[in-house]
């Protein structure tokens, strides 16, 4: 039966989601469903139609007279009462909530219209006349690097990569561009802002996802002490996948507008705005060299990376580039690595978080050269992978770049995947078909073996600075989370989370974890997922990113629940006249272990604690609310050698993709896709599989279909859902999921994050499969039928141009 308690209790059980009843009835509470403050005026933004233009003048007179319009504010009006958004490193253009003097990407806010409703606001926005002087736009990362738009250039070296490459029997070189794509959650951004002039403080309701480092950035731009920026998230959010971290700059924009106009304001982003200006993944071009010994041993890796972060270096960028730094060697036991990282600015929308966050780009390059190395040596790619995987007995394993891989059995996962995919059989079939002469349809098999880091080290981003620069500032490290549990006078439990769920089901799992510790049923636990910076227990690292819930968010709940349980055991021990250690909490009772008839109900204990604190054991603090914080271990700041444990936990994913490419039409069909995961302890296996399916679809997008495209002038060509092609039910192939479990020794429950692995692996596995099918080394994503056909035609194959 669904939801049955397992032998291990509620951890690992699969109860129905507590979120679902309301959502299925249309009773969710998303940002645009809320009216937390009466009389909010609506905003519409005037956005630059040019990728790069000087703003000569803005004439808002007609707009201001438009029916229902209250005010029109220019970027300069906002800048006059604010500071630029703080950046991780210097060098990029100053970034305000709206453009001042120069617009640097098409879609950048230039003016804000305040009106009675959104219809009227859009009417007025059309009447704002902006005199632009178009300037030359830089759109391509390589051009930007050539032209000197480099805001960070750092080189790293670990081991002796030069010598290892010189000794290699084979050096494979490749360039792997990974273009922009975007998360496109079905709900867009929303912000409701209410500036209180009496208190000189701002309350904002927004579907922001964290990290709350960005609360500090927003407060700084608003000129507020952090305590006077109250940020509240709604109970429900319509998906994020990273992009809603970018809401913070709109929080500043709406907050300033409310401040200047003296009214509460509401901005609900529409889809055109979202695709133009919300943010996307970076555009990265990776040049990679991989040196192999003749037996397939990977000897060295050298990366040269150029990362386009868009028009401004918006926090937390350049984090996309450094999130994977500890895992530059992926799943392989190679010790010689060199990398040069250049961050460039272009006249495109600023980038930000996106599921996989740096992983898809890294693994496309790494896994392609692994497959090509095998081909170059005449070896099977699965054998080359096996030859190089970090051995099971090496854990915990320190990578040359500083990560501490916690646990795993990578070879076993690879074997599971190969067996499930009938890898040998497929290879034989492929060989037989090739022996019979290449036909119209070509079979290809692609592997990807990826380490999936979770729970980011808040210090990794400081690798963008040199060790000397870091030494001059404050060190940053770790990743901490808090949770509050309270037992009410009738024995019910409430939990308050700061993990800002975006649909993952945190409330369901938190209830399981709390119920487990307290001997209750999940139904006895009410979990609140709203973040309120004036109420919740939080740190800068709170929020929803780096798949941190299972490893650290749930751990905070477990810790708080354990402390509450300990307190209940103390009270019960006093009542039952035994040592607290002899008390167990089960089925809503505190019982003496081994004496099931000697017990007292938790309800009774709770009542005593609330109503009769005089009865509590001496020395015991009254009250049954516990706030606990936990911090992930081993996450030191980067050291002088630029080594960093960029994440606390490391899952492992092996994908085997089998595809068939129609050389006449270029169509790529996925015949079979197997994924094997080791994410440690699974807290709720059904939710786990849901994360894997979603993550897979998210990675399939940029591999086969999705891309954010601008023309040569910087106009967005994929500005609506007619042209930005999200994968639909007919495009996502079935996914076969298998699990292994080596619990993490570094997280409280043994769980590792797993919401991003397939986004990292799918582009690589599919690129390897298509490359294998066609024997082409340089086919760029996405593999749409027209693009594949063009590439084949260019190679003089199959295309058969009439």
């Amino acid at each position, binding site marked *: 039966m669904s939801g049955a308690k397992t032998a291990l209790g509620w951890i690992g059980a699969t109860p129905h989601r507590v979120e679902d009843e309301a959502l*299925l009835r249309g009773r969710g509470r998303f940002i645009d469903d809320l009216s937390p403050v009466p009389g909010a005026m609506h905003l519409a933004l005037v956005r630059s139609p040019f990728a790069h233009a000087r703003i000569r003048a803005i004439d808002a007179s007609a707009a201001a007279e438009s029916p229902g319009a209250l005010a029109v504010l220019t970027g300069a009006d906002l800048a006059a009462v604010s500071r630029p958004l703080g950046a991780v490193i210097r060098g990029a253009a100053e970034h305000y909530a709206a453009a001042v003097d120069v617009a640097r990407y098409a879609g950048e806010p230039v003016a804000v219209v305040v009106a009675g409703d959104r219809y009227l606001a859009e009417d007025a926005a059309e009447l704002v006349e902006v005199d632009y002087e178009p300037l030359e736009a830089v759109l391509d990362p390589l051009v930007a690097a050539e032209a000197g738009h480099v805001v960070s250039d750092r080189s790293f070296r670990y081991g002796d990569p030069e010598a290892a490459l010189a000794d290699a029997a084979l050096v494979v070189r490749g360039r792997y561009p990974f273009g922009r794509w975007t998360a*496109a959650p*079905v709900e867009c951004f929303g912000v409701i802002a209410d500036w209180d002039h009496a208190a000189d403080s701002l309350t904002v309701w927004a579907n922001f996802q964290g990290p709350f480092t960005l609360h500090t950035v927003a407060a700084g731009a608003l000129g507020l002490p952090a305590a006077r920026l109250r940020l509240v998230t709604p109970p429900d959010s319509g998906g994020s996948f990273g992009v809603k971290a970018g809401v913070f700059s709109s929080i500043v924009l709406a907050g300033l507008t409310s401040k200047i106009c003296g009214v509460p304001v509401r901005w609900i982003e529409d889809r055109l705005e979202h695709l133009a200006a919300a943010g996307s993944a970076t555009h990265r071009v990776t040049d990679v060299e991989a040196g192999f010994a003749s037996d397939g041993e990977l000897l060295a890796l050298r990366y040269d990376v150029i990362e386009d972060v868009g028009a401004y270096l918006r926090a937390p960028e350049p984090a996309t580039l450094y999130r994977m730094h500890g895992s530059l060697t992926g799943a392989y036991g190679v010790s010689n690595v060199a990398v040069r990282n250049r961050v460039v600015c272009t006249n495109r929308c600023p980038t930000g978080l996106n599921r996989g966050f740096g992983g898809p780009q890294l693994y496309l390059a790494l896994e392609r050269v692994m497959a090509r190395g095998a081909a170059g040596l005449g070896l099977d790619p699965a054998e080359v992978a096996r030859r190089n995987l970090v051995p099971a007995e090496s854990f915990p394993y320190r990578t040359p770049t500083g990560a501490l891989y916690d646990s795993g059995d990578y070879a076993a996962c690879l074997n599971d995947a190969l067996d499930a995919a009938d890898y040998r059989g497929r290879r034989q079939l492929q060989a037989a078909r090739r022996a019979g002469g290449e036909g119209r349809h070509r079979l290809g098999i692609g592997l990807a073996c990826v380490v999936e880091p979770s729970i980011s080290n808040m210090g990794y981003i400081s690798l963008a600075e040199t060790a000397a620069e870091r030494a001059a500032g404050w060190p940053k490290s770790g990743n901490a989370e808090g949770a509050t549990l309270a037992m009410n006078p009738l024995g019910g439990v409430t939990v308050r989370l700061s993990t800002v769920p975006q649909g993952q089901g945190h409330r369901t799992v938190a209830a399981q974890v709390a119920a487990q510790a307290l001997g209750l049923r999940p139904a006895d636990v009410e979990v609140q997922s709203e973040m309120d910076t004036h109420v919740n227990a939080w740190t800068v690292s709170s929020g929803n990113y780096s798949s941190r819930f299972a490893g650290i968010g749930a751990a905070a709940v477990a810790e708080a629940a354990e402390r509450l349980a300990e307190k209940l055991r103390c009270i019960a021990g006093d009542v039952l006249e035994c040592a607290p250690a002899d008390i167990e909490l089960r089925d809503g009772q505190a019982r003496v272990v081994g004496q099931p008839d000697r017990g007292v109900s938790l309800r009774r204990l709770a009542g005593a604690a609330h109503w009769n604190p005089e009865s509590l054991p001496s020395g015991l603090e009254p009250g049954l609310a516990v706030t606990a914080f936990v911090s992930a271990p081993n996450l030191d700041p980067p050291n002088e050698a630029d080594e960093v444990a960029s994440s606390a936990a490391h899952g492992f994913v092996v994908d085997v993709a089998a595809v068939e490419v129609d050389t006449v039409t270029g169509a790529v069909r996925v015949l079979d896709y197997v994924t094997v995961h080791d994410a440690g302890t699974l807290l709720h296996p059904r939710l786990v599989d849901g994360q894997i399916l979603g993550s897979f679809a998210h990675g399939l997008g940029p591999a086969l279909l999705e891309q954010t495209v601008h023309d040569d002038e910087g106009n967005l060509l994929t500005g609506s859902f007619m042209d930005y092609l999200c994968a639909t039910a007919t495009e996502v192939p079935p996914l076969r999921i298998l699990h292994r479990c080596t619990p993490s020794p570094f997280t409280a429950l043994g769980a590792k994050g797993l919401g991003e692995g397939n986004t990292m692996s799918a582009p690589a596995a599919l690129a390897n499969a298509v490359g294998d099918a066609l024997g082409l080394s340089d086919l760029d994503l996405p593999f749409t039928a027209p693009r594949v056909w063009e590439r084949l035609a260019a190679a003089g194959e199959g295309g058969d141009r009439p």
Partner: protein
Amino acid sequence: MSSHSEIAVTVNGRRYREAVAERMLLSDFLRQRLGLTGTHVGCEHGVCGSCTVHLDGAAVRSCLLLAVQTDGADVRTVEGLADGERLHPLQEAFREHFALQCGFCTPGILMAAADFLAHNPAPARNEIAEMLAGHLCRCTGYAPIIDAIAAASGSGAE
């Protein structure tokens, strides 16, 4: 200023008489005027499917209709899908199959699927997928949704 019209419309069995701006979208009318916020707005150009409701029994995009067009019509939204306390079989199946995560696209999919199954009570999986292709879900990868609709259908095909 846009002109206004008075409309009489039945929504989830309740009759409303309202003066609406003629350009007001049905989606905005349902959400902002009637407080029926279960109908979600995800793209306002008819692609994402989140705003799907029933108009005189047929599933339609409420972002592609004007409120004034529903004068005299019968509208059903996701709030009217369950039979009181008892969830609709599709809602039950979605819960059972973990067919939603953030739940934002879910109301539109439920309304479309309810109409779809009325016309095609025992669909094959690929028919469900083709119907579902008119809806964007960025969380689930769609497979659990197909499972749920199949389970709720007469075919129960899994």
